[in-house]
C-alpha cells in the first residue's frame, strides 16, 4: 500500500486527486479545475461514445452503400459556435483567479503595500536560501538572518489578522522554480531578475509529537515537526530532484517568537554583543 510508506510527519497525504489546498486563491484555482474536469469528462465520454457507436453501427455490411454526404453547413456552424462560447467563458472565468494569484497590483487582492511579511528567496544549485528581515521587519539591518531550505511563514489567527507573504524571488545561477503544492504556488526563480510571488496559508503546521516546535529542541530536526514540502519545478541540473525545502506555518505569536530568537542570535554574531 502506498500510504504505508509515509512517515507520520507530513500533515496530509493524497493519491488520486489534487493535494489539499490551504491558500486564499487556491480555492478559485481548484474550482476552475473542477469545472474544466467535468466539462472535459462529459466531452470525452460523448466523443468516444459516439465514435464507438458509429464504429459498431456502421461497420462494413455488404450490400449497403455508405451515405454520400460532403457535410452539413448547419452542423459546422453549430460545432464552431458552441465550443467558442464555452471557451470564452473558461477564459473569462480564469482571468479573475489568474490576476488574484499572480498580479499583486491588481485591484482585487492584495496591494503591494499591504503585505504583512516580506522575505527574499535566492535559489542556487541545489538549495533555497531564505532571507528573513528579522524582528525589525527591515532588510539590510543587523538582525537579518538566512535559513537554508527552511521557509517559515505566519498564518492568520482570525479575520482581523489577514496574514500574507511576499517573496522577492531570484536565483544566482540557473532557472529554478518555487513550487508549493499545497498553496498552489509556482513561480520561476530567474537569475538577473527579481520576481514577486505572494501567497497566504490558512493551515498551521503543528509541533512534533513531544509538543515542542523544532526551534525549541536541540538539535533541531526540521522533519520531526509537521511540515509542508516545497519543490523545485524547473530543471536546474543533475541534482534537480534534491532541491527540497521544508515549509512551516506558525501562528503569529509563535512566528514572532521564532523571529525574535533568530534575530537575537544574528545580531550577536554580527555585532559581537
Amino acid at each position, binding site marked *: 500500500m*502506498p*500510504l504505508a510508506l*509515509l512517515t507520520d510527519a507530513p500533515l496530509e*497525504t*493524497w*493519491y*488520486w486527486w*489534487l*493535494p489539499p489546498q490551504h491558500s486564499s*486563491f487556491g480555492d*478559485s*484555482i481548484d474550482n*476552475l479545475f473542477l469545472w*474544466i474536469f467535468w466539462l*472535459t469528462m462529459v466531452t*470525452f465520454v460523448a*466523443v468516444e461514445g459516439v*465514435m464507438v457507436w*458509429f*464504429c459498431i453501427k*456502421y*461497420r462494413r455490411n455488404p450490400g449497403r452503400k*455508405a*451515405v*454520400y*454526404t*460532403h*457535410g*452539413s*453547413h448547419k452542423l459546422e456552424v453549430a460545432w*464552431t459556435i458552441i*465550443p467558442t462560447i464555452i471557451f*470564452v467563458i*473558461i*477564459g473569462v472565468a*480564469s482571468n479573475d*483567479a489568474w*490576476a488574484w*494569484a*499572480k*498580479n499583486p497590483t491588481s485591484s482585487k487582492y492584495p496591494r503591494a503595500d499591504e503585505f504583512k511579511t516580506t522575505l527574499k528567496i535566492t535559489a542556487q544549485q541545489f538549495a533555497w536560501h531564505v532571507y528573513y528581515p528579522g524582528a525589525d521587519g527591515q532588510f539590510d539591518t543587523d538582525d537579518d538572518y538566512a535559513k537554508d531550505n527552511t521557509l517559515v511563514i505566519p498564518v492568520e489567527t482570525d479575520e482581523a489578522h489577514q496574514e500574507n507573504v511576499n517573496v522577492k524571488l531570484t536565483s*544566482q*545561477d*540557473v*532557472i529554478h*522554480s518555487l513550487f508549493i*503544492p499545497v498553496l*498552489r504556488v509556482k*513561480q*520561476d526563480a*530567474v*537569475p*538577473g531578475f527579481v520576481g514577486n510571488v505572494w501567497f497566504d496559508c490558512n493551515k498551521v503546521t503543528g509541533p512534533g509529537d513531544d509538543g515542542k516546535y523544532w526551534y525549541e529542541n536541540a538539535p533541531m530536526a526540521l522533519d520531526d515537526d509537521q511540515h509542508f*514540502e516545497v519543490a523545485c*519545478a524547473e*530543471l536546474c*541540473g*543533475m541534482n534537480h*530532484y*534534491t532541491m527540497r525545502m521544508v515549509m512551516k506555518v506558525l501562528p503569529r505569536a509563535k512566528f514572532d517568537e521564532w523571529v525574535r530568537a533568530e534575530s537575537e542570535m544574528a545580531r550577536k554574531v554580527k555585532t559581537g554583543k
Partner: protein
Amino acid sequence: MSDTHAAPAHGATAHDATHGAHHHELPWLRKYVFSTDHKVIGLQYMFSCLFTLMVGGLLALMVRWQVAYPTGATMTDAQKQEYVAKGIDPATVNVDKPIPVLGHLLWGTPDDPTTPDEDEHEAGIFDDNGGQMPDAWYPIAFTMHASVMIFLVIIPMLTGFFGNFVIPLQIGAKDMAFPFLNGLSFWTWLGGALVLLGSFFADPQGLAAGAGWTAYPPLSDVASAAPSSGIGQTLWCIGVILVGTSSIMGSMNYITTIINLRSPGMTLFRMPLTTWSAFITAILQLFATPVLSSAMAMLLFDRHMGTSFFLPSGLIFTERALQNAGGGQVILWQHIFWFYSHPAVYIMILPAMGICSDVIAVWSRKPIFGYRPMVYAISAIAGLGFVVWGHHMFQSGMNPVLGTTFMMSTIMIALPSAVKVFNWLGTLWGGQITFSPALLFALGFVSMFVIGGLSGIYMACAPFDIFIHDTYFIVAHIHYVLFTGSVMGIFAGIYHWYPKMFGRFMSDFWGQIHFWLTFIFMNGVFFPMHIIGLGGYPRRYASFRSYEFLKPYESMNVFMTWCAILLGFSQFIFLFNLLWNIWKGKRVTSDNPWHANSLEWSTPTPPGHGNWPGSVPTVYHGPYEFSHPAMAEDYAPQWIPMPKGGGPTSSGGTAPAPAPAH
C-alpha cells in the same frame, strides 16, 4: 546507417524492373543512395527514422527505469534476514536495481555482495557505476530522448517521409520542384542526426546534452552549470541547426511543388487533406525554423565566443562569480525558443491529421465530412499556433498581464481542433467501415488526440497551469499528442501506403495485434501520468525518494515503466511486419488495392522514376467522391471523369447529393 538505406533498394529493384523499364537506368549509388527521386528520399527518411525511433525508445525506457527504480532503494525485512543468514551486514549491501542489460553495458556490472573482497569492478562503455545510471546522466537521457523523438523521428517521419513520398503522387507531379535540393535536405538531416547521436561519444562519460530539449540557459549556456554542458551541448546546438536547415530546404521545396506542379485540373481545393496539411505544415516550418536556428546560433555564440545574449550579470556558479558575462536576458531565450517550438508542436501533429483524414475517408467509404472546414481548421491551427507560445511561460516571470493574452489565444486554438474531431466523427457516420490496421491506427489517433486536446484546456487555463506546470500532467499531455497522436498517425500512414511503396501487402493480422498491444500499453504508460501530475509530481525528477509527498506514487511509476517496456517490445511486431513483407509479402495485383480516389493510386505499383509512365493524369473532381449514388462502384477516382449528370462538376465540397445542403 548504410544498411538501413540499402533496405528499400532491394525491395524497389525487383519491382522497378517491371514498371520502370522504359526509363534509362541510373547507377545503383545514384539511384538508391544519392538519389533525387522523391520516393527514394522519402524511404531513406523512413528507414533512418525507424533506426532513430529505436534509439529514442531505448532512451525513453532508460528514463522510465530510473524513475521507477531510482538509487537508494531500501531493503525489505525478508531481504535483510536473508543477508543476515548469509553472514553479510545488510547495511553494506546495495539493493538498487540497475537497468537490465543496457545498464551493465554502459556502466559496468553490479558488485556481488556475497563476494565483497574480489575486485570485480568492470567498466561499461561509459564508466563503472555498478550498472546504475549516474545522477548526471538522467537529464541527458530525457533530453536526448526528446531531441531524438522530435528532431529525428516525428518531424522527419511526417514531413520528410510522408511529405516526400505522398505530395508529388497526390498532386500529380513527376517529382519535387527541386529534386537536388530535396536530396540535399535529406543528407543535411542525416548529418544533423549523426551529430546529435554522435554527441554521446564525444565525451568518455557519454555526456551528451542534458539541459532538457528546451535547453533553457543558463543551464545550457554556462559550462560549469552542469556536467552535461560541455561538448555534448555544443554538438546538440550544431545538430539542431543542421536538422533545421534541412527542414527549411524541405519546406521550400514542398511549397514550391504544391503551388507550381499540380497536374491539370488539380485545383487547391481538389487536393487531398494529406497534401493540404503538408502544405500548411511547410509554411509553418518555413516561418518558424529560422527562428530556432538563430536561437541556436546565439546560444553557440554565448558558449564559445564570449557573447551574453542570455546571461545576466552577477551569476555565481560553484561559488565563483562568472566572469565576462552580463547584460543578457534569460527569458529572451524562452521567447525565441517557444516562438519556434510551439508551431513545431503543430508541425508534429498537422501532417498526422491529414494522413488520418485520408485513411478514415478511404476505409469508411465516405467523403470527408466538411472538407473545406477541415482545410480552414488546419489553417486556423497554423495561424493561431504563432500567437500562443507564451503559454509555455506562464510561470517564467513574464508579465502576468501577457499571461491573460496567451491564455485566451491558447484556449481558442482548441476550437479548430474540436472542429476537426467533429468532422472525423461526421465522416464515420453512415460509413461502410473496414477495420484495417490503417483505420484502427487512424481511429486510435482520433480518440487519443481527444484526450491530448482536452488535457490541453487544463494548462491553457493559466491559473490552473500554476499548479500543473512542469509536472507529469504536462508529460502526459505531450505524449498523448505526440505519441498516441502523431506516432499513431505515422503507423496509420505506413499501413495505408505500404502497398504503393513496396508493391506488397503488410500482414493484416499482425497489424491488428500491433495496434491493440500498442493501444493498451500506451495508455498504461501515459494515462497514470495525469494522476501523478495532479498530485504535483514534478517532471524531470531522477528520484522520488527525496520527497515524502512523492513516495505514494512509487507503485504507479513501476506500473508505467513496465507498460513502457511492453510497449517498446510490441513495436518489434511492426518492424518485423514492415521489413519481412518488403520481400516476402503478398504481391499487390492492382494499382489501387484500397479502391481509393486520390492520384497516388493511379501510378504503377510501386511507381517508377517520374511516377507516371506517360504524361501526368488530368484531375476531374475532388478526392473524396466515395459511395456516390450515381456510381455503381463506391469510389470515383480523381483521374476518371464522373458520368454526365451524376458527378460533381467543381471542387470537392459542392456535389449535388441527397445530403444536408450547404
